[in-house]
């Protein structure tokens, strides 16, 4: 079966998750990867959405981080203060899943602004849960497409900390989790090098070349000595992902009739 680079990226991300992991899920690519994993090899993955739904098992991907289906299919729902204090800050999350607009070689992320903070060229949505997910999850996974505008030599703004300046600086700044242990791009997977903690290309997707990868990064990309090639998506992975995305797209685009009859109850 043929497949796109985006599909490979989502499937590669899903494969990083082990059955039983407790994942703190952001919206978009992380959500697709987590639910794909749950629907394939990791049925007992515990998904916590930052909207406070715990043990969520949606049939389709939510458009927002707080769609009703997330509450309906959750084991239970807690408040925002509780999900951040009692679950994330308390160290009860195994994997925090993050995306961003910019990443540097140490896995630090920017989702706040391109250009100057006070006078930004492009204002991005901002931090959300990211700084504390990055700090407290036992490890973080980052999912991002790689191109020289996203994989940059220097961030315009550091929204969440990866390995900071590398070489163990993260541990001295009170970031308790192990940081970005896996970065999944549309070309391959990066992992931190021992010692320096600089991210290096560790696995590459079938058909992609190291030259392609180097061209996609804004810094001189290091490549692991034993670079491996990841297996292509299986038919089951692809079919499950496509069915999930089909169900989701139909639901998102559905122009439901407005329930105007509810207005009639008003005096």
């Amino acid at each position, binding site marked *: 079966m043929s497949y796109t680079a985006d599909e490979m990226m989502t499937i590669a991300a899903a494969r990083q998750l082990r059955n039983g992991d407790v994942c703190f899920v952001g*919206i*978009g690519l992380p959500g697709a990867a987590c639910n794909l994993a749950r629907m394939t090899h990791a049925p007992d993955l515990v998904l916590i959405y930052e*909207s*406070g*739904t715990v043990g969520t098992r949606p049939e389709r991907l*939510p*458009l*927002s*981080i*707080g*769609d*009703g289906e997330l*509450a309906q299919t959750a084991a239970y*729902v807690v*408040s*925002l*203060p509780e999900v*951040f*204090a009692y679950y*994330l800050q308390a160290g009860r999350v195994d994997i925090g899943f993050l995306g961003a607009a910019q990443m540097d070689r140490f896995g*630090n992320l920017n989702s*706040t602004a391109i250009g100057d*903070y*006070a006078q*930004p*060229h*492009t*204002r*991005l*949505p*901002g*931090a*959300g*849960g*990211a*700084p*504390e997910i990055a*700090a407290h999850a036992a490890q973080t996974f980052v999912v991002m497409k790689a191109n020289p505008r996203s994989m940059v030599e220097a961030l315009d*703004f*550091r*929204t*969440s900390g990866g390995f900071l300046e590398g070489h163990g600086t*993260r541990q001295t*700044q*009170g*970031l308790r989790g192990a940081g970005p242990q896996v970065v999944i791009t549309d070309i391959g997977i990066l992992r931190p090098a021992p010692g320096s903690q600089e991210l290096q290309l560790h696995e590459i997707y079938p058909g992609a070349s190291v030259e392609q990868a180097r061209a996609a990064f804004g810094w001189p990309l290091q490549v692991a000595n034993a670079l491996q090639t990841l297996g292509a998506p299986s038919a089951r992975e692809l079919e499950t992902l496509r069915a999930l995305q089909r169900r989701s797209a139909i*639901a*998102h*685009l*559905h*122009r*439901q009739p*407005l*329930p*105007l009859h*509810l*207005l009639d*109850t*008003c*005096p």
Partner: protein
Amino acid sequence: MTLSDALAHHVHDGNCVALEGFTHLIPFAAGHELIRQGRRDLHLVRMTPDLIYDQMIGMGCARRLTFSWGGNPGVGSLHRLRDAIEHAWPHALELDEHSHAGMAAAYTAGASGLPFGVLRGYQGCDLPQHNPRIASVTCPYSGERLATVPALRPDVTILHAQVADAQGNVSLHGIVGAQREAALAARTVIVTVEQRVESLPPAMNQIVLPHWIVNAIVHCPLGAWPSYAQGHYDRDNAFYLNWDAVSRDRQKFLRWMQDNILSSANHAEMMHRVARERAA
């Protein structure tokens, strides 16, 4: 009491106002009515500004924004928010920017009558360099430094909820964000509800706001549309997707606001107008 009367009575230009609701139960009808009433210089507070603050900011209601994530969830940018920050249109907007964990701690402190909240937060993050309100304390036992945020104490918190009883007790369920904390932190609480009943069943451990902290309740079905009310109607994801194109252009945005919000006398009329537009 009508929504118009309640907001005219309780919300004044210059107030610090929180319309809370994390994706769910966002008080859109109340926000629209504040736009109709031409409120100005508001200090708006919300973890996720969402479309309702995009509209209020674009219509010039806000002077300052306390927030932690300003996007169109699952879609992309809030173009009116971006235009205010990037180009000061329709005028400049002061930012008091946090992380979700920071705002949750700030609401909790407000609800608890404490002057500040403590968190292990903002480590490795540039926000504290740009927001002097993010400070720190030293743990008197371990000597660790922890981040602090000043308590949020809105003048007015406005919520939407599923149901209220005759006495004024309010019940909500589903994704509840920091709504309870935002209400308990506020000096004045206004709630719009989908439904009124004579009395609520004993709620045991479910979420209730008691009548003696709620200042006004307005029966306002569909008051959270295009967000949703669990058990009543779903989120109108198509509206959120479509908002990207509407809000991207200043004139298109102003026309939409004129045609749908300003031209409608109230929320019910607006809902009918949107329905006609959608059918066309």
